[in-house]
Structures are given as structure tokens and as C-alpha cells.
């Protein structure tokens, strides 16, 4: 190859990826994307071949959430591209930076129902932060630079790039791009000083302040500032499902997760606070319950990088637009502590009065297994969780001490996310211990990725909490629909141990409490992937629980003895 040879669009694209520091691509090939796969042969970027495109998006998402760097996906046109839609939604809802590159039919065939053609930019408009259809190879360097910048600045999100095959296989003589011009896109940093000072006054005057920490604090790495704020104000901390780990959950001022299945003491604090300070959180319906009755008498401060979140669910007394860490640091510079001793003691009393608990006798319980997983891994593992009962129990019992050690699909609630996300996280952080906690339902949606882990000898662990049910829906049907079970019995589940073995993956089974530590430790010591199946009680329910649409004060702490009203919330 001579130095002067004009690269193809595909070669230029791969060079752009290298310049962006990409080390891994999660992809699945196909006709329209062969030129890009061909260019990858000569690249130092490691291609991870997946078994289904949805798996690729979740792997890239897990990779992104474990590191804060964009995860990259490469798939073909038509069905390859449409299979990424769920992953795009998952990433958008949780503000996760993804770059999804989709092959496309030749430009002359666009809109003609050519083989494996789909209007991919059209299909994905509502689930991307931004997208491109590249119709001129000379645009490739600019589009790639813009895409990475947009994906991982401000409120991060997925960016899709659709590249017709003639563009990727044709020549591209455009130079690399450093400077970009996006007049419609600004990245907020600091909030106005007078608003920061006004927030500081409200915090000083509060007798019962509460810090409510979300994904924005994870993204901006604001944990240290959150802890300092809590310690100086003497204010308790609660976090959302996605905010777990932004601030150390084992800190004495931390009350754990709030919301629908949060700890009772966290939700008690929400009900009784006189000031709630949302830090990179968006008053989601899982958190507020009935909005009209949420913290009615409390002052509200809302810190978010996305101005569209202000006044969306409720009207805060003060809104602070900016990066969570930067704004908190500005706030700390002007903060005067208030008097909160009585409040802290009250929260501590709730913690003693309403601890998370579960019976250790009468059959194997998921809570017990997860509680032990936390201890066996010394609370240091990166945990990815799927969606359902196991996810809520994992959020309750696996206290997250460090940022980016808890990865789950919150906003979208995408079943099938957990296992591929763990694979992505393990590729991103090979030195970390990575466990996926999944249910038998969600796992079967993306279990083909067992092959991906096996072929790379990747030491990711998968713990299946198997109750042979779609457990969360079964719980709702039991509590709110007279136990009329409909479409929740997963009879026909495979033997997951044999299934793993079929892929050459070592697998372990937990049948009783006495097995737990031994089997978890055995799985930990495996070189390469390992799978553990915990055969738990079929009919167990997650508590505490705030029925959807009910106020937080209507939290159910213990299993109810009578039938409950159907929830007014939609899901």
C-alpha cells in the first residue's frame, strides 16, 4: 500500500474511530456493512462479534456506563439496524453515550425497497439524541467528530450514523476534522452564581434537608461533592435506581434507594423532609408516586444539565442548570451549614425501625442469595442487573460503594439488558469483578450472548435468579388482580446449567441456603465465564412497595393481608 492511496469511506471511518480512542466495537456483519468490517481487519480496534444486534447495543451500553466513554456498535442495514432500536431507547432513557453505525443500501436505492433496506434514520428519530444519514463520503470525518462530541457531552445519549454501502466503499479524500461547528448545541457547565447562592440560602434554612441523587451525578462523577455537601449540611442522601453508587451507599448519611421499591427509611425521609435537592435526577414516576402529593410542603431545588427537565414533572423553587459536579463545587464554596441534628437522629431511628429484611428459613430466597453475593464480592464488584424483581432486590441488598459499579436499565426497563451489559462492562474493565444479576425471563431474551462471552474466555459472571416466573408481573397479579395469573408462568425453562455447559461455560446451581457461599465462590474462581443458577422460591414479593400512582406515604412495608386496590399509575 502506498502512502498516497486514497482511503475508502470505510477506512476513513475506522481511522476516525481510532482517533476517538475506540478500542472495542460490538457488531454483527451483513451485506451493506462488509466494507467497514473489511477495514477493521487492518485496525487495532478489537471487534466483538455478537449473536444478535440487540446484544451489541446493550454490550456497548454496559461498556459506556462502566467507563464513561461511548460504546460503539456496528451492524448491517434493514433488520440488523432495526434490531438496535431497543438498545437505542435503553441508552436514550438512561442518558448513556452510544455510537451506532448502521450499514445502508446504496444511495441510488434509497427509498426503493431494495434488499435489506429500511428507513433507519426515520425509524430511530424518537430514540436517538441525534442521527446522520451520510450521503457524501467527504462528510465522514465531520460526522464522526460531531457524533462522538454529541454522544458524550451535555446530557449524553445515543447517536446513530447510517452509511450507504457506496459511501463506505467509495473513496474519501476529506481530511480529519478537529474543530466542529454546532450552533444549535451548547454544553452547560456552571449555573448562574445568584441562583447557586439562593440555593445555598434555602439549604441553610432547611431543618430537614434531603439530597436526592440520580444518574446525572453518576455521569458527572459528582459523588465526592455530594458526600461533602451531605457532611457539611448534615443532610441524609437517597438515590434513584440509576443513581446508585454516585455517592457511596455505605456512608452513614446514606439511606439507600428511594422510590417504588426503595428502602422504607429512604421513603420516610422523602415524606418528612422540608427540602429536597434533586441532583441529576428528574422526578421520575417511580420516584414521586403521585406527583400532586409528592413533598408537598418541602422546598425543591432541581439541578440538571437538561433545561427541559425543569417544570416538566413539578415546579422547583430553584432550578440550577449545569454539570452536577461543577455546580455542587460552586455551591460548596458558598455553603453555610444549618441545624439538622434532630432530623439526622430521626432518619437513623427509621433505619433501625424499618430495616430491609427477609426470612432465612422456609426455602431459598433471592434476597438471601443477593445479600451473600454482596458479602462474597466484598461489595467491590461491578454489578449489572436486568429488569424485574431480582433487579429491585439487587438494588436493595447490593450496596454500591463506588461510581459506575451499578449498571441497569432504569428508564426503559429493558429485559435482556443485564447479561450483555455485563459482557460490555467486563471488556471495558477487565481487571474488575463483573457480575450480571438476571431473572430467568430477561436472561432468555439475550442468552445467545453466552457464546460471545465463551469465545473470548471473558471472566464475566452471570447469576440467574430463577423462579420460573415473570415475577414482577406475577406479584402485581397476586396483589392487585386477585392472583389471576396470566402469561407469567415460564414453564419450559431450560436447565440453565446444562445450557451453559453446552456453550462450554462452567455453571453452578444453588438449591438451598447452605449452597450459596460455596457456589458463588466456586463461580468466582473460574477462569473464563461462569454461570450460577439460584433456584429460588417461586412466589416471593418485593417489599417495600409504593403502588404505581400512589403517594410515597402509602408505602407498603410488609406483605399485606388483604386485597389491594388496583394501582392508578400506568405501569
Amino acid at each position, binding site marked *: 500500500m502506498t502512502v498516497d492511496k486514497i482511503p475508502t469511506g470505510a477506512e476513513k471511518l475506522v481511522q476516525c474511530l481510532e482517533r476517538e480512542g475506540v478500542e472495542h466495537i460490538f457488531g454483527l456483519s451483513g451485506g451493506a456493512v462488509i466494507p467497514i468490517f473489511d477495514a477493521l481487519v487492518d485496525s487495532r480496534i478489537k471487534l466483538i462479534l455478537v449473536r444478535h444486534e440487540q446484544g451489541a447495543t446493550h454490550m456497548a451500553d454496559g461498556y459506556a456506563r462502566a467507563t464513561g466513554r461511548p460504546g460503539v456498535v456496528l451492524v448491517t442495514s434493514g433488520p440488523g439496524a432495526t434490531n438496535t432500536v431497543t438498545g437505542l431507547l435503553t441508552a436514550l432513557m438512561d442518558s448513556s453515550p452510544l455510537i451506532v453505525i448502521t450499514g445502508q443500501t446504496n444511495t441510488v436505492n434509497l427509498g426503493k425497497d431494495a434488499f435489506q433496506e429500511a428507513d433507519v434514520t426515520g425509524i430511530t428519530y424518537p430514540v436517538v439524541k441525534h*442521527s446522520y444519514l451520510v450521503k457524501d463520503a467527504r462528510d465522514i470525518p465531520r460526522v464522526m467528530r460531531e457524533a462522538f462530541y454529541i454522544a458524550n457531552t451535555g446530557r449524553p445519549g445515543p447517536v446513530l450514523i447510517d452509511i450507504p454501502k457506496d459511501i463506505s466503499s467509495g473513496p474519501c479524500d476529506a481530511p480529519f476534522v478537529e474543530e466542529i461547528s454546532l450552533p*444549535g*448545541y451548547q454544553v452547560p457547565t456552571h449555573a448562574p452564581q445568584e441562583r447557586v447562592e439562593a440555593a445555598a440560602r434555602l439549604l441553610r434554612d432547611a431543618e430537614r434537608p434531603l439530597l436526592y441523587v440520580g444518574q446525572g451525578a453518576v455521569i458527572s462523577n459528582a459523588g465526592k461533592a455530594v458526600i461533602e455537601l451531605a457532611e457539611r449540611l448534615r443532610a441524609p442522601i437517597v438515590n434513584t435506581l440509576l443513581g446508585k453508587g454516585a455517592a457511596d451507599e455505605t456512608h452513614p448519611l446514606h439511606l439507600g434507594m428511594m422510590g417504588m421499591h426503595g428502602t422504607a427509611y429512604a421513603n420516610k425521609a422523602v415524606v418528612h423532609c422540608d427540602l429536597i435537592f434533586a441532583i441529576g435526577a428528574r422526578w421520575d414516576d417511580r420516584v414521586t408516586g403521585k406527583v400532586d402529593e409528592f413533598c408537598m410542603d418541602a422546598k425543591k431545588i432541581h439541578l440538571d444539565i437538561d*433545561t427541559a427537565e425543569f417544570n416538566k414533572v413539578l415546579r422547583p423553587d430553584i432550578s440550577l442548570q449545569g454539570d452536577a459536579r461543577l455546580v455542587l463545587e460552586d455551591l460548596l464554596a458558598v455553603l453555610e451549614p444549618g441545624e439538622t441534628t434532630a432530623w439526622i437522629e430521626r432518619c437513623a431511628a427509621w433505619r433501625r425501625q424499618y430495616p430491609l429484611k427477609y426470612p432465612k428459613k422456609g426455602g431459598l430466597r433471592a434476597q438471601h442469595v443477593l445479600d451473600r453475593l454482596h458479602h462474597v464480592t466484598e461489595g467491590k464488584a461491578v454489578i449489572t442487573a436486568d429488569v424485574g424483581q431480582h433487579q429491585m432486590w439487587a438494588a436493595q441488598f447490593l450496596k454500591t460503594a463506588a461510581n459506575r459499579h451499578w449498571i441497569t436499565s432504569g428508564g426503559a426497563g429493558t429485559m435482556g439488558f443485564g447479561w450483555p451489559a455485563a459482557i460490555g462492562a467486563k471488556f471495558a474493565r477487565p481487571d474488575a469483578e463483573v457480575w450480571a444479576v438476571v431473572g430467568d425471563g430477561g436472561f432468555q431474551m439475550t442468552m445467545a450472548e453466552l457464546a460471545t462471552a465463551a469465545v473470548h474466555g471473558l471472566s464475566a459472571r452471570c447469576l440467574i435468579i430463577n423462579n420460573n416466573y415473570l415475577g414482577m408481573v406475577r406479584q402485581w397479579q397476586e396483589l392487585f388482580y386477585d392472583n389471576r395469573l396470566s402469561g407469567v408462568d415460564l414453564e419450559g425453562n431450560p436447565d440453565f446449567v446444562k445450557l451453559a455447559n453446552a456453550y462450554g461455560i462452567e455453571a453452578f446451581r444453588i438449591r438451598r441456603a447452605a449452597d450459596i457461599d460455596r457456589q458463588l465462590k466456586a463461580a468466582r474462581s473460574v477462569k473464563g465465564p461462569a454461570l450460577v443458577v439460584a433456584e429460588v422460591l417461586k412466589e416471593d414479593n418485593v417489599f417495600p412497595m409504593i403502588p404505581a400512582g400512589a403517594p410515597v406515604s402509602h408505602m407498603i412495608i410488609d406483605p399485606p393481608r388483604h386485597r389491594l386496590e388496583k394501582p392508578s399509575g400506568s405501569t
Partner: protein
Amino acid sequence: MAAPEPATPAWRRDHVRTISLYVHNRPGVLVRVALVFARRGYNIESLVVSPAAEGHFSRMTITCSGDPATLEQIIKQLHKLVDVVHALDHTGDDAYETEIALVKVECGLHERSEVLQIAEHFGAKVTDYGENSLMLRVYGSSEKLDAIITLLRPCGLRELIRSGKILMVRGLQET
């Protein structure tokens, strides 16, 4: 015969909002803007897109109706689009607004004095004087256009095309 409609429909009097957008002229920007409205079930009454003074940029003037809280969300979501430079609600601002309508009225040579009288009153220009029809061009505020259309309806109104409202803020303040 149905009772004549009031000159200005209730939705326009009560809820109509005018938003102007300054957008980076990139493929798909119109779809992205339209989806922000569609997702919330918000109806666009009119939408005008044209090139701006600066190359690579376009202006959109959108009129729509709906509740103000949703509209606040819509404007913020529009502003959030990467290709939207700004989105402003100009309802109630000191701005010049105008709209053009073309109206075709079916009427014979001996039945058109009333139509011509209405046209004259509204400053409408006759742009086609046919044997069996007249075409009128009228411009002005949307309310004025509503009024002439209401009057022409019983006179044999056959076709109506409105450009949609365009708007520019007075003085040096940005539209």
C-alpha cells in the same frame, strides 16, 4: 343553510401560539421538529419554512394550539434538538404578523358584485377573472383572513389556500 361561523374560531382566540425557530439547515430537521409535536398529540395549525438571511440556516414559523404547560415542554424539547439554534414563543410579543390566502369563488358574471365588494373592503386583489370563477389574493393578519373567508363562504367558495402565518419581531430584538 348553516349559521355562519364566527369570524375568529374559538381555538384561535383562546389558545393559538406562535413559535419561531431558527434552525441549522440539515436533512431531517423538519421531521425532528414535527415529531416533538406529534409525540405529545399537539396539533400544528400552520408551519412555514424558508431560508434565512444567513446560508445554511432556515426559519420556521409554527402556529399551534394546546395547553400552555405542554407548550413550554415542546419549546424546550425543540431547543434541545441539535439542529435547532433557538426556539421562541412569540405569543403576545410586539411583532409584525402576516399571512396570505388565495381564494377561488365560483360565481357567474352577473353574480359577482357582492364578492367584488367584499374583496374591495378587505383590500384583496383579483388575480384571476374568469367566466365562472374569481380568484382573490388577500393578505394581513390571520384574523382578517378568517373574516373574509367567513364572508366568502356563502358566495360559492370553492378552494382556499393559506400560506400560514409568518412573523417578525419589531425593532432589533431577535425573532
